């Protein structure tokens, strides 16, 4: 039986003074798994991801991440849990005062890895996501698609145990979307559990992975499609 990285039990969320977003959500993320989180806009995909990277507390239910309960764990543990998670944010969250090599190597710096080594790894990843020519560019000068690829490179540079991506193909063309999907699949083959929140049909149809469908405040798990020989 695979090791469970994240476990949601009857989780629900309601913003203060707002309506209930979802309730009774139960699912788990196993080590090395690959899943899509899908659902219509406003269904709570981003909120669910935020709970996974410990940016939002649930209103109901319990969460376990890497065996820890975020609601009762010591605040000192939080950064170390986050170091195991790579996140591609919908709004990229790149630092405008750093060039893209510095942005991508930032998680390695946080881990205390030598800056030069970090830059080398960042350059390799940037080459891989097709940004070989703009290592020294700054985020404000990049297009939405380029920023997205930088954000992906930053999220995967530490080879996290869990990769969370919020609409990672929202700003790229179909060709790049498929390329990025292959990138995630390669990372997954190396043992990283991947959860991608998307409503990109192309991605969903191109993959044979399990889908978590968030609709009407509840979560439905769709098993992986069978591969036809």
């Amino acid at each position: 039986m695979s090791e469970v990285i994240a476990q949601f039990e009857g989780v629900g969320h309601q913003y203060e003074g707002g309506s209930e977003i979802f309730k009774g959500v139960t699912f788990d993320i196993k080590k090395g798994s690959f899943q899509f989180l899908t659902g219509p806009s406003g269904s709570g995909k981003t909120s669910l991801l935020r709970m996974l990277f410990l940016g939002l507390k649930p209103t109901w239910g319990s969460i376990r991440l890497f065996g820890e309960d975020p609601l009762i764990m010591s605040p000192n543990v939080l950064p170390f849990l986050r170091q195991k998670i790579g996140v591609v944010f919908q709004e990229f969250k790149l630092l405008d005062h750093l060039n893209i090599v510095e942005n991508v190597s930032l998680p390695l710096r946080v881990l205390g890895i030598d800056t030069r080594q970090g830059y080398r790894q960042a350059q390799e990843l940037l080459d891989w996501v097709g940004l070989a020519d703009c290592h020294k560019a700054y985020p404000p000068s990049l297009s939405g698609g380029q920023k997205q690829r930088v954000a992906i490179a930053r999220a995967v540079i530490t080879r996290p145990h869990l990769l969370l991506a919020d609409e990672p193909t929202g700003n790229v063309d179909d060709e790049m979307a498929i390329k990025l999907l292959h990138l995630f699949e390669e990372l997954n083959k190396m043992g990283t559990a991947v959860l991608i929140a998307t409503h990109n049909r192309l991605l969903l149809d191109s993959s044979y992975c399990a889908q978590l469908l968030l609709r009407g405040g509840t979560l439905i798990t769709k098993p992986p499609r069978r591969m036809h020989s």
Partner: protein
Amino acid sequence: MNRQDLPLKNDIAARFVPKIVALMVYLGTLCFVFTLFMVHSTESWEKQFSTQLTLEIPTTNKASSAVLQTRVLQLLQRTPGILNATPVPHKEMADLLQGLLGEEVNVEHLTLPIVIDITLNGKEIVDVPTLEAHLKNISPQIHLSDHRGWQNQVSGLIHTSIMIALVVTVLILLGALVTTTFATRTSLLIHRQVIEVLSLIGATPTYIANQFQRNAFKQGLIASGIGSGLAFVTFIGILYLMENAGFSATVRSSFFFEALCVFLFVPLFTAASMMISVRFAVMKELNQ
């Protein structure tokens, strides 16, 4: 190339804090060095007055005054605790009076008393009332002036001034630290988004605080170095002006060494204090 993750050099707080710190350090260092100067100059003055007595023998006629002087000197030589007793030369007394009364008065016509400067050895306690009684036996008109009474009052006043100066110095430095803490809080608000990103990728509060404290130490060292340097120049200028105006104070050479240490160590001390207060402020905010 090793840029800081947080662009602390460019925010408003970074531009405003060094100027305030430089000014505070300038005032604080100057205040502290002058306090030190007062301690040293009053130390030699206090030592001098705590071992001095003055004796005055009125002159009725020259012959009897000379006899009185001899008897008094003999008594003083026998008195334990007295190092030496020297009559002030008549010419010195006349010159002193001439200076006080002006050229119009002919001091040669005045009857000047015999003044004896008594130096105590400082090791034994001189019983002044008994000595005074013995002197009165020789002549009731002999007057012994013990400067220690008023010297104690002046000394108390000086020590109070020194304490006030030290409190002012400490308050100035505290002011610098409070300013730094408020500027850090502003900085935390300005860079909230960058801090959020760093936190989300797993940066510990210590990692973030290290960036703030490194910046604070560097800023503090430069700003307080400038403040201390300017205070040094001002101090030398004031000493020069005092010297030219004829107020040369007697201080030991150790004062100059101590003052130099203050000018050198205040920037280091300020920078270290700023670093610690910034770390404390950041850790407190982040842990909340």
